[in-house]
């Protein structure tokens, strides 16, 4: 119990530092990344290259494990089907992302430095998640 919390705390810290370093917590940079018809800044493509390049090997290793390295249950997603919720949800998410240039990770990592606007975004996001949960019932 203690080990998995410590590992999650450290992973959250490393994740956040990665987001800040990469430019993902800079909404203007995200918008310029999505602005392929304007003054396109492709920097954030390198975030994906770095992140996927490293974790690819971890996931390959993980697929052969029955328990994690600290004896936790492995919980990999099992869904395979390309269904309507996946597509609709991703469209809604993409529109929201493009409207301000923030997605959940960077928003949480900016919650203490981003002032009222980021706080407002996070509250709206949490309400959105709660609405999903109500609708799902």
């Amino acid at each position, binding site marked *: 119990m203690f080990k998995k919390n410590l590992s999650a705390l450290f992973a959250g810290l490393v994740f956040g530092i990665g987001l800040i370093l*990469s*430019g993902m917590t800079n909404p203007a940079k995200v918008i310029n990344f999505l602005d392929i018809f304007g003054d396109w800044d492709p920097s954030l493509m390198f*975030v994906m290259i770095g992140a996927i390049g490293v974790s690819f090997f*971890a996931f390959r290793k*993980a697929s052969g494990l029955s328990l994690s390295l600290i004896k936790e249950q492995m919980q990999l997603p099992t869904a395979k089907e*390309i269904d309507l919720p996946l597509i609709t949800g991703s469209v809604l998410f*993409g529109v929201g992302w*493009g409207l301000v240039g923030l*997605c959940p990770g960077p928003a949480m990592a900016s919650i203490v430095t981003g002032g009222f606007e980021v706080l407002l975004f996070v509250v709206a996001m949490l309400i959105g998640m709660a609405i999903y949960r109500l609708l799902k019932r």
Partner: protein
Amino acid sequence: MEDFTPITSLIGGIFIGLSASMMILFNGRIAGISGILGGIADAHKSDVSWRVAFFAGLVLSPFVYMLFSEPFAAKLTVPDLQIVIAGLLVGIGSRYGSGCTSGHGVCGIARMSKRSIVATAVFMTAGIATVYVTHHMG
């Protein structure tokens, strides 16, 4: 394109990749932010604390960053109503679509999940279309 930062973005990405690697190899979990956050409400009691710990790390990360480099601040310059609509869409959409940029865009693609590759293509396209509409039309 004076803001092109391939090196720092790549290094940042490597950090994110290391974090995702830790989460899967140690915790047996996908480092998907919307899933870790949205799943808190319905998680089993023994499954709550690591989620809170992860977010504690994420929220505190700017302070660690500031020990080594100059402070940063995300600045949103769009109207409040637009921020609220965007937040609602990001919240509903990421849960309904089972993931966001981290869960699908990083972890899912690294696992070579077909669902995540499709989801990433869809939300990137939707994001690009939205920026086109808000910045180049009207």
